[in-house]
């Protein structure tokens, strides 16, 4: 049996958890929504940090530290082996995301390289992106990004994850600061700041903006993905849970604000008109990052340098999250008795193969992003169900408030987990699925359409069916390992 590794210090653990939380969503999704809805979006985004993300992060930290097992083993230990499938669903969702997340890392890496070498076509960025995305290069860069992640995880917790995050996170902050200085010194940068922070009453009263704020909070912090639980397996026994949870959550949102300050003023300053800037923010995540931003940055002196800064920041943010996903999958296999050196190649090869369709077909990528992104809301609610079944008060006393000197969590936690998180999850699911019918009134039930309700239901059912079927085997493997 392999010796259990630990993070060498609290700072190492925090660099890893904050690095995990800060991902592509902070760089390409947050500025897009914050620029569109301004302060009216920022208010729910900040409120739901407390009412969704932080309670779930506390739950994950507490479980990982107590059980010292990955997601499936933890659900099995706390809820009983009959419920291993629940942990299985959380793991399945995060791994399905990992398959295409590696592709995003590859895109960012490729665009960073063409930016520094000055090979990025400055005449037609949409055409450049389309020709890149329809070729074989995304597959090559998916494999390169995955190999980088795999090499990091192969080194283990201290030599791999810890060392990588010591470089990635501070570098990301420096890159964002360079971006902010450039953006805020551009002419008319204040227009972008105005859009970013001003509150429009019509948006503040819109349920849609509140649900966007909740969605961003749910997706951006990594709460309910099982990733924090995985890192918590390696935390020291007397480490604070609540204080570390607050640092992870506030660190993630601080980085989102940095990204917003670097991107939104630049878009409004460089776009030919206000309408063009507003349209740029509606271009979608990949459209904004890989078409609009290079196009706008090409107007700057030292355009290649600033493009390279942006894509390197995107790559660092994405790869620090990818390594946590690879670790989640590796940890689960280690719980089944495989040593890291055997588990990791299996995880890496599976990710290479299962990520390939997303690398080759953008439509497939978007389908997976839609299905499993939404699946994460279910994952978050499964953590709440685990705690409710165990007993919320008992969980708070036996799992959370156990470290002397840590912030003590009061009864607000009980009410949030029992009522608010399930209500938020139901609201989000109903709203997004309803939107999918609105987008596609003719084919919403069709499982072969990329963003339909039908594709979500079918893929979730297939995953759940498979996990129910495998539950017995999972139980036996875990029992054998424990014995």
């Amino acid at each position, binding site marked *: 049996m392999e010796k259990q590794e630990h993070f060498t*210090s*609290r*700072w190492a653990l*925090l660099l890893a958890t904050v690095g995990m939380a800060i991902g592509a969503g902070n760089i390409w999704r947050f500025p897009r929504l914050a620029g569109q809805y*301004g*302060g009216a979006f*920022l208010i729910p985004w*900040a409120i739901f940090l407390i009412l969704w993300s932080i309670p779930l992060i506390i739950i994950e930290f507490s479980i990982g530290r107590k059980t010292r097992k990955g997601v499936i083993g933890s659900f099995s230990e706390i809820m009983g082996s009959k419920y291993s499938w629940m942990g299985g669903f959380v793991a399945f969702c995060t791994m399905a995301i990992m398959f295409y997340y590696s592709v995003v890392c590859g895109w960012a890496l490729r665009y960073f390289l063409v930016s520094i070498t000055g090979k990025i076509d400055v005449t037609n960025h949409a055409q450049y992106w389309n020709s890149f995305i329809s070729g074989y290069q995304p597959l090559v860069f998916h494999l390169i990004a995955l190999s980088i992640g795999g090499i990091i995880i192969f080194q283990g917790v201290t030599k791999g994850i810890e060392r990588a995050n010591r470089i990635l996170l501070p570098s990301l902050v420096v890159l964002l600061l360079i971006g902010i200085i450039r953006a805020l010194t551009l002419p008319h940068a*204040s227009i972008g*700041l*105005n859009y*970013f*922070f*001003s*509150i429009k009453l019509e948006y503040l009263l819109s349920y849609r903006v509140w649900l966007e704020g909740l969605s961003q909070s749910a997706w951006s912090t990594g709460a309910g993905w099982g990733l924090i639980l995985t890192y918590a397996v390696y935390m020291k026994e007397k480490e*604070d849970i609540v*204080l*570390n949870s*607050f*640092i992870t959550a*506030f*660190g993630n*949102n*601080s980085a989102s*604000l940095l990204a917003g300050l670097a991107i939104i003023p630049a878009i409004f300053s460089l776009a030919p008109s206000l309408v063009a800037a507003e349209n740029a923010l509606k271009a979608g995540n990949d459209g904004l990052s890989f078409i609009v931003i290079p196009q706008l940055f090409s107007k700057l002196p030292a355009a290649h340098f600033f493009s390279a800064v942006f894509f390197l920041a995107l790559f660092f943010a994405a790869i620090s999250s990818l390594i946590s996903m690879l670790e989640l999958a590796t940890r689960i296999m280690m719980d089944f008795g495989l040593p890291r050196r055997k588990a990791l190649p299996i995880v890496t090869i599976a990710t290479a193969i299962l990520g390939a369709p997303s690398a080759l077909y953008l439509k497939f990528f978007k389908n997976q992003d839609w299905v499993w992104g939404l699946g994460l809301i279910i994952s978050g609610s499964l953590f709440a169900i685990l705690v409710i079944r165990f007993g919320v008060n008992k969980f708070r006393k036996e799992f959370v408030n156990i470290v002397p*000197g840590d912030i003590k969590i009061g009864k607000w936690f009980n009410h949030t987990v029992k009522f608010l998180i399930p209500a938020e999850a139901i609201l989000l699911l109903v709203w997004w699925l309803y939107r999918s019918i609105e987008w596609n009134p003719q084919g919403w039930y069709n499982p072969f359409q990329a963003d339909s309700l039908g594709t979500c239901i079918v893929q979730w059912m297939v995953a759940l069916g498979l996990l129910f079927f495998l539950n017995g085997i999972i139980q036996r493997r875990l029992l054998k390992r424990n014995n």
Partner: protein
Amino acid sequence: MSTNAIIMMIILLGSIWGGFSYFLQRAYKREKESKDRKK
């Protein structure tokens, strides 16, 4: 920038960045105390 935006910017950056700095400082103190105790 409008007054509305300036006020919101101060509140938001103050609460998120301020909160992050406060929790980091608290963690730093906890680490220092635990090191002192070990000595």
